[in-house]
């Protein structure tokens, strides 16, 4: 069904190499020893430690949601919806569906949020779902109400995610011309789709993938592109000013588009966009309108997500007798490790945002956001 498809596209697994190893409860305990290792500047972002077990979860949380939450612990996926619970939902006698369902939804969302902070698209989807549930007429029969809701959700996933992705990919791939060298950063699903589609259409172009520590998401992109037979060049953030000279266009994915036209995306995106705009290379952002938000930010400090710092440690190599210098960083006074998830790219660096509604300048984000609310 569409829903399953949607869930697949959305939660396609992106395993993180050393997440599991480091987020064991043991390493959580280490945090409490001696010194506060939180970076003072970002104290507001270290809320509670990220949930690592399902212990203590409210009993109202549905099984499917639990499973979703668990997979979120392992993967950097962005599921827009976790709504299978509605199918197994039975309105308790004595209450109406809208009121009870809304109440029930909150622990689910809270649980998901405790696994990893909710992405902009998830928040938008939840807001939409709550409105939808509120609109259900109390008089409607329960079975009818449930099937109506599920259908609406299916449509939502199809429109906002699957079709939106296809539309964006075909629009963006038409921007790639023969002889182009496309530079991209880390891995974005829509950008991957765009590049593969342009290649399938027979356009002859090169791709430069810039990647960064500690996630190395770009390696996956390289894997996919190389498998499709594309000409790929790979390097890390240090080479960006160098490789930018040979690029002709820059394609970036988004985690969210903020209403002041800024791009909230994987950390390092701002560095790439800045280098591109200094050399007057067009920067094109591919972003579904579900990721548009009315939030705004001026810097990357107020809103962000902190990755557990142990992920910055270098993987221990086999046969290496001596320990990495950083291995015992928690015992060293005054030393802190900081790994942020996102950064905010100024709107000046962005030339074009491609959404399913068309291509527009970053200044139009807010109007697209309003438009997508009304549809």
């Amino acid at each position, binding site marked *: 069904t569409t829903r399953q498809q949607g869930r697949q596209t959305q939660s396609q697994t992106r395993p993180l190499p050393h997440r599991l190893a480091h987020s064991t409860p043991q390493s959580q305990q280490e945090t409490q020893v001696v010194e506060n290792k939180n970076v003072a500047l970002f104290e507001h972002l270290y809320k509670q430690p990220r949930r690592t077990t399902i212990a203590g979860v409210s009993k109202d949380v549905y099984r499917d949601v639990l499973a979703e939450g668990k997979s979120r612990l392992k993967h950097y996926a962005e599921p827009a919806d976790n709504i299978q619970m509605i199918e197994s939902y039975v309105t308790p006698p004595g209450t109406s569906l809208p009121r009870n369902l809304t109440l029930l939804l909150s622990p689910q969302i809270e649980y998901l949020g405790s696994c990893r902070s909710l992405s902009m698209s998830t928040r938008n989807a939840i807001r939409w779902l709550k409105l939808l549930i509120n609109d259900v007429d109390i008089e409607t029969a329960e079975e009818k109400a449930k099937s109506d809701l599920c259908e609406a959700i299916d449509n939502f996933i199809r429109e906002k995610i699957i079709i939106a992705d296809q539309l964006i990919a075909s629009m963006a791939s038409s921007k790639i011309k023969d002889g182009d060298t496309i530079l991209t950063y880390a891995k974005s699903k829509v950008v991957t789709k765009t590049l593969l589609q342009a290649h399938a259409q027979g356009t002859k172009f090169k791709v430069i993938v810039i990647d960064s520590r500690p996630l190395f998401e770009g390696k996956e992109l390289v894997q996919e592109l190389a498998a499709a037979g594309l000409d790929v060049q790979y*390097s890390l953030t240090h080479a960006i000013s160098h490789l930018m000279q040979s690029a002709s266009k820059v394609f970036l994915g988004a985690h969210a588009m903020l209403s002041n036209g800024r791009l909230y995306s994987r950390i390092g995106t701002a560095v790439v966009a800045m280098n591109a705009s200094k050399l007057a290379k067009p920067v094109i952002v591919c972003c579904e309108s579900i990721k548009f938000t009315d939030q705004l930010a001026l810097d990357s400090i107020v809103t962000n997500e902190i990755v557990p710092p142990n992920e910055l440690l270098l*993987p221990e190599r086999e046969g290496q007798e001596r*320990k990495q210098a950083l291995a015992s960083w928690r015992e060293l006074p005054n030393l802190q490790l900081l790994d942020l998830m996102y950064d905010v790219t100024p709107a000046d660096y962005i030339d074009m945002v491609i959404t399913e509604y068309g291509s527009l300048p970053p200044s139009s984000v807010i109007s697209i956001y309003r438009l997508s609310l009304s549809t």
Partner: protein
Amino acid sequence: MSFAPNLSSFLGSLKESPTNVELSLQTLVDLFKRRQIRGSRQCAIATAHLLKQVIRRFKARDTVSLIKRVQDVGQKLTDAQPKELAISNIIRRILGVIRDEADGDKEGDAFQNYSSSEPGTPRKKGSMSPPQGQQNGVPVIADLEALHRPPLLTSHTSYMASTNGPIVTSMFSLLSQPLSDTSTPGSQSPAQQLYSSFNPTLRPQELSAEVIDGIDEIIDELDNMDDQIASYAIDHIHSNEIILTHGTSLTVQRFLLRAASKRRFTVIHAEGYPNQHHETHATITGKHKASSDGDPDQSDVQRFAKPLIEAGITVVLIPDAAVFALMSRVNKVILGTHAVLANGGLIASAGVKSIALAAREHRTPVVVVTGVYKLCPTFVFDFDSFIEYGEPGCVLGCAEDSDLIGKVDVENPLHDYVEGELVDLFITNLGGHAPFSLSSVITEQYRSEDTDLAVGN
């Protein structure tokens, strides 16, 4: 101890066999070619020591052939590692010492009071040169060296066409001097200069000894450079600042460490992955032996640096991708560099360009700390020719990315060219310089006839 030859083993071999100059030269050329001695500081020290040996063993009795000999040796060294600009800078300095001694001998007869009456006082007070002298009790050694230099050349621009002959104090030099000459002190009139002629056969024994002294001063300067640079730290870092730095520069570490003796601040340190991160981690943790595939030469020197965290400074290690995100809270960016070109542009570690750009975008001042031996008089337009490339294996490891090897092109530049306009302040062992006054510092360092050392000849 590592068995691979490095700087200390080379210096040891110089001591052991002081007579076989050709062998030492060949050894150093090989070490340069194999990049077993690398980094501007190590190359500079090795070059200075070798040339000292060359000059000590040189038998000819006139300056012209001594200069020729140094130029020949210099050519071999720069050919071995053309991207290490410090080598040619040291050769230029030494050529300058020889020329100065040759000129000075003649001058000394006519104006004996210059060098004998007030030793330690700079003879020339170029209006563009920074305040010099005793700084925190550390004598600025370059002054002594500048003592023997005729003031005539101070207003040459480093990149102007120069006469390559050994004769400096000629009509040509006088004519190429701009009319609006404010930097030449009035102590020596052009007429007097005109009379002092060049005598190539004057007292060769003494000359050679004086040149050796001059080279020793240069070597001393290389050794004490970081201390002198660090003495300016208090002037530039104030309390509770957030400083961003990058990579493993020992000069930067000592600069920050000196500031830490008086002030409390926070350092955000970008790690410089994939070429420098082992060294960076070792530098901030103070565990130098921990890095297994780091550069052993580097560790030899760096072992003597105390990590900042031990001085009570909070150090935050970040991946390189985070520099833009954090720049809005950074008060100053302090960077080391590999070389500084005559136009003020930097050849610095890869990734520094992005930091400098991000700093400019946030109007954050960028301070570059560097020894004067990294300032090059060469003016080039093809900046990419100075960029060296590293092993692609650092970017894609053989073990963990075996499935990607062979499918992709991997690029690993070691250096970035950073425009001088992105730098707000240079701090050298001579003091602080605004970027636009850098060219006058460069001019004072080298004789203009040596500018074309590597490029022209």
